[in-house]
């Protein structure tokens, strides 16, 4: 089951500098939204706020119209999953890395094991089940991180530049696989990237973040034109009239 997340009047300042200033942002149920912007635009900070890991100075976040409060924050977090740029795996085996978050959320041991096996198979890392996570290659580690997130069966998935540290063949292979998995699973997803070429694999819905504000939102082709996929990452900023 998918849900909708709505953020309203979110403000965060640090040392008198505005980091995030969002009037309204919503993610449609079952949809995939790409959040793109240059370094320092506030993408990762916004993702941490939306994933309830960072409290903004002001603003509200709602799940299906219900505001997230201190009382229901943990329950809300337990309906989400995050994949960071670094795989950030625990110092144990691949399989245990996928099982532990499930056990934390109260999923029975047998179910956690079944889900871990299913997602290791789907992401092509089943042969690494008993492998120490610290000895994985970058691509294997990120596959494990994605398997860990998807095995939680989240209603909302956040991905913070998950492919930026990977080489091109690994990145493409993962993008293709996720491009199949996400629409089929119906998981509402927010995908942060600074590389436009990654977006079409997963979605055509884009929000552009600049200096903490969403300056454009819509279909990738409407924002960037027909050649969106082939142009250089930084060209869009010139096209949409930003400095």
């Amino acid at each position, binding site marked *: 089951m998918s849900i909708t997340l709505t953020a309203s009047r979110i403000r965060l300042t640090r040392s008198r500098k505005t980091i995030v200033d969002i009037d309204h942002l919503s993610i449609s149920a079952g949809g995939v939204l790409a959040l793109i912007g240059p370094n320092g635009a506030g993408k990762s900070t916004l993702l941490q706020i939306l994933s309830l*890991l960072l409290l903004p100075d002001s603003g509200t976040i709602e799940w299906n119209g219900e505001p997230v409060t201190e009382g229901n924050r943990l329950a809300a977090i337990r309906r989400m999953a995050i994949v*960071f740029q670094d795989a950030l795996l625990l110092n144990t085996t691949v399989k245990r890395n996928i099982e532990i978050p499930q056990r934390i959320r109260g999923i029975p041991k047998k179910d956690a094991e079944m889900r871990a096996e299913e997602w290791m198979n789907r992401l092509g890392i089943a042969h690494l089940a008993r492998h120490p996570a610290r000895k994985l290659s970058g691509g294997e580690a990120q596959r494990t991180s994605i398997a860990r997130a998807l095995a939680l069966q989240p209603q909302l998935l956040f991905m913070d530049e998950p492919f930026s540290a990977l080489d091109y063949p690994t990145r493409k292979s993962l993008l293709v696989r996720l491009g199949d998995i996400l629409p089929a699973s119906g998981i509402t997803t927010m995908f942060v990237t600074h590389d436009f070429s990654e977006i079409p694999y997963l979605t055509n819905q884009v929000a552009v973040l600049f200096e903490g504000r969403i300056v454009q939102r819509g279909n990738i082709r409407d924002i960037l034109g027909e050649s969106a996929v082939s142009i250089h990452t930084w060209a869009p900023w010139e096209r949409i009239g930003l400095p």
Partner: protein
Amino acid sequence: MLTAVRMLVTLDPEVLEITWRTIQVSTTATLISVIVGIPIGTMLALRRFRGRGLWVSLINFGMGLPPVVVGLVTWLLLARYGPLGMLGLLYTPTAMVIAQSIIACPIVAGFSMAAIQSLNPKMLLQIRSMGTTRLQFLLLLLWEARLGILSAVIAGFGGVVSEVGASMMVGGNIRGYTRVLTTATVLEVSKGKMELATALSIILLTLTFAVVSLLSHLQQRRSGS
């Protein structure tokens, strides 16, 4: 060396009793320092609050506390006319445990703080994103930092099992009651019985090596390597 071997092989009752007391006192002090030091180290690693810098300085300072000074302070606290004199703990094994705990706590706290601070800060976010309760968060964090935490325990135990000043001062080196391997060694040296002192030192080294090896084995086995 031969004397030490003979004492162990023949199970010399006095040596066994001193060795057992050394294990009891130092292990108890290490356990207390783990119970007190790890939470302090964890709090200092994770929290930002007014006066934190002073606490960190105190912990770092405490890691190098001279045992003889700790012994003196503990003696003043436990002496008949001291603030805790009514407890009647001076020259008891309990007094030695108190003094050794004071020595080990900053060591365990300092190493624990460093172990947690050495984790990738984003790992803390990743753990929180799993939906951990506060307790689950702390347990998973400590588990992730277990190599450094076990180093803290090893350093704490090593610090107390080898000290002599504090144990001598607050324990009094009473035969059959507060004598431990270090204080017994000092006594035998002062009596000129170098062979016996050497034997006791070898037993102390063997004991320390055995405990540290056990902890090191645990540390490396759990490293996932």
